[in-house]
């Protein structure tokens, strides 16, 4: 059902965990639906110095979470905001159609974390 790349990320997910002093945190999804993702970011200058995740969900949810951390790490805020759900799926060699909508939430979680960061920054001005 899943591509080799998805299975590889599912078995060996990158950047699992929390960042205790994260600059931004974004949570999307809902355990009721079967997928819940939290992405943590650490920003230095204008770049994402570190990105970590925690995910409750199916294989696709875990693989997309892992992939978003790889795609986003080292990117500028502007670049990271340009990463789409489609980019995540493409980087994983595609996802089953039914998973595109329900489990492909990682880009949303990243964007939520960046939004959180930007709002905090605004508030501290």
């Amino acid at each position, binding site marked *: 059902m899943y591509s080799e790349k998805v*299975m590889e990320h599912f078995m060996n997910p990158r950047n699992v965990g929390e960042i205790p002093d994260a600059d931004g945190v974004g*949570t999307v999804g809902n355990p*009721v*639906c*079967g997928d819940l993702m939290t992405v943590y970011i650490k920003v230095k200058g204008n770049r994402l110095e570190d990105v970590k995740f*925690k*995910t409750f969900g199916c294989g696709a949810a875990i693989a997309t979470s892992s992939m978003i951390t790889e795609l986003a790490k080292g990117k500028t805020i502007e670049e990271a905001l340009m990463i789409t759900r489609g980019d995540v799926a493409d980087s994983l060699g595609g996802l089953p159609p039914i998973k595109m909508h329900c489990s492909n939430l990682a880009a949303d979680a990243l964007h939520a974390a960046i939004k959180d960061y930007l709002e905090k920054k605004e508030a501290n001005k």
Partner: protein
Amino acid sequence: MDHAAGMPLDPRVFEAMKPYFTENYGNPSSSHSFGASARNALMESREKVARLIGAEKSEDVIFTSGGTESNNLTIKGVAYRNKEKGNHIITTPIEHISVINICKHLQKQGFEVTYMPVDKQGMVDPEKLRDEITDKTILISVMYANGEIGTIQPIREIGKIAHENRIYFHVDAVAAAGKVPINVEEENIDLLSISSNDMYGPRGVGALYVKKGTRIQPVTQGGGQERGLRSGTENIPGIVGMGKAAEIAQEEMVAEGRRLSQLRDELVKGVLDKIERSYLNGHPTKRLANNSNLRFSYIEGESLILGLDMLGIQVSSGSACTSKTLEPSHVLLAIGLAHEEAHGSLVFTMGKQNSEEDVDYVLEVLPGVVKRLRAMSPLTPKEMLR
């Protein structure tokens, strides 16, 4: 360890079927000797199935294409034929999806359906069921055992109540037949659905027991085979296979049931001992010998299935993520589990191929898979990760 949705064909069954594909291809409706051979095979298979379910008259067994067709024929056939008497059906919310969807279909046509709530272990309370009976009730349909959570219903008690109230009693025994002794006469069952594939027989064949005198009408029209209730040329190789599977099941049921229930209990005990916040879904003792349905907090079933699959263990789940509809199992929701609990449930169904070694292997690797997924989950309490 996934035998719930289909079992491998028993080689002895395959051997019995073979001649009916090549040498004995007669049609039971033909008058010549080829036809007679097919008629004989049909009769013998009917007798074997009748014996398995304790039916006194083998002609009360009608062959169909499987459990879904048997359920359609019996529920629609009784509902349509008895609608002058009443329009009320009593069933449960944990029935097989075919029964649930047939009932929903009938509701659109003006029938009223009561879905009797079950308790946390998936049990129907016969006395509460009695209270739901009205003078419009024409059919009670309750499954013998649930294939997903394994719970075995108090069929005899429900049968007695149905009989006392002169209401037809249908039992979907697809998950139970060949695994637990069934006796349609003693248990007051008027109609009973079974499937060949759930007892190591071929796919595409099933049976419906229809007690003589039951007012039922066909749902397909044709040449009048199977007492007019199931027209269409009989699937002789399939029926022979089902007969053989029924015969083997009857011979081996007791010993195999004892063996499987031991394995099941070891698996359940081992998992509950080794993995904290793990739970057994369904009834602790009144359950199918081959079924263990286990729940793990904070993680999701599909990722568990994938993790186990990578280690060579095949199981199924109550999770939405493995279904076509994206809804978690209706059975798990009906026994009162929250959505996230239903998502985190795994079904282990063991069969003839499974042994003690398989249970040991699951107990060896499952805790690690659970631990790894919990370490990733934002729902896992921090103190559990230390």
